[in-house]
């Protein structure tokens, strides 16, 4: 009796295409896309922070604006995404470097690269002066209109430089960099740090 019922059920089972319910998955993905787009918009500044440096933590709240970046790498100094100088007494780094290869950075600058009694870094100074002149040339052709008064004026060079450095970098090298930047008319330094989450 039982077997006959089973057979009847098997006979009645109709072969149908398997329909996956995609609507709920679509809903979920759309929510994710909206969330990611929102967080993407708040972090619009592209940063050239090196993966080789560990930033210090800070409770500061200012989000960096788009500006010229200066990165103190373990092997040298990068300015505006271009390496301007290598540090002295670096160990021989195999190319390609094997996985997990590390070395202790020296952050030493050769004396031939220094001027003003060892305070100004010449290759960095040259790069910064070039960058300033380029920015000033571009600004001289631009016109800014004051939204309240309607006055037209030429924008002025702000001289903002964003400094990225490893947390172990000593003030001695930072002082040289700041002195060089100040000499090249970059008068506002923005020190980059990782945001510390408050308890």
């Amino acid at each position, binding site marked *: 009796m039982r077997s006959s019922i089973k057979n009847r059920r098997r006979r009645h089972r109709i072969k149908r295409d398997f329909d996956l319910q995609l609507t709920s998955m679509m809903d979920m993905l759309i929510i994710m896309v909206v969330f990611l787009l929102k967080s993407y918009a708040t972090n619009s500044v592209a*940063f050239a922070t090196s993966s080789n440096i560990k930033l210090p*933590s800070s409770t500061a709240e200012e989000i960096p604006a788009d500006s010229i970046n200066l990165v103190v790498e373990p092997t040298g100094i990068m300015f505006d995404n271009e390496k301007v100088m290598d540090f002295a007494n670096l160990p021989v780094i195999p190319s390609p470097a094997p996985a997990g290869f590390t070395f202790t950075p020296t952050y030493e600058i050769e004396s031939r690269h220094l001027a003003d009694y060892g305070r100004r870094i010449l290759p960095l100074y040259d790069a910064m002066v070039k960058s300033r002149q380029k920015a000033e040339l571009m600004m001289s052709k631009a016109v800014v209109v004051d939204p309240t008064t309607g006055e037209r004026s030429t924008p002025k060079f702000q001289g903002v430089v964003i400094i990225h450095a490893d947390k172990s970098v000593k003030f*001695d090298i930072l002082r040289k960099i700041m002195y060089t*930047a100040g000499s090249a008319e970059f008068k506002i330094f923005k020190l*980059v740090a990782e945001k510390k989450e408050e308890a």
Partner: protein
Amino acid sequence: MLKRPTSRRKSGSQEVNPNLVPMLDALVTLVAFLLFSSAFLSIVVIDTPAPVLAPAEEQIEKMKEKPLQLTVHIRPETIFITDWSGSRETHTIPSLPDLKTGEKRYDYERFHQTLVEIKRRYPKETKIIFKPDGGVSYEVLVALMDAARRFEKTDSVLYKKNDQGIDEPETKLFSEVIFGNIMS
């Protein structure tokens, strides 16, 4: 001409099933792209202007007002806080041995509390000059700048008058940090 009854019945009840698979593909690709390109590390910046040498006449005028010129000398094992003349504020904060490592570290808490006390005496002062030694690390500088720039939630509240003359809690301690020994 009349239609056959069977075809009339079928034409009214046809379900429309949009093909969601290509849309799903596009969304998955978009999510993957956004996840890869999003920065989950929040980056912040601390402003510090380069010291500017004012003209001699301006300097003389400023000195008549007897500015505080609060200066922090960061030595290897001590923090020394002083005003311009050294007559109003002089504080020495020695480093403490770390409980975990035993190595000496700066006493950030005492440094902050000292600055809070100074701020109570000079509530309008906003500038502080840092003069670190060459061997002080960037991490220590950022930690000291954090301690000097803002009141913490646990600090007793200092009130200031806003533009409408209403008392409001002050959040900034010495918010303008300038490195005083860059040019020297």
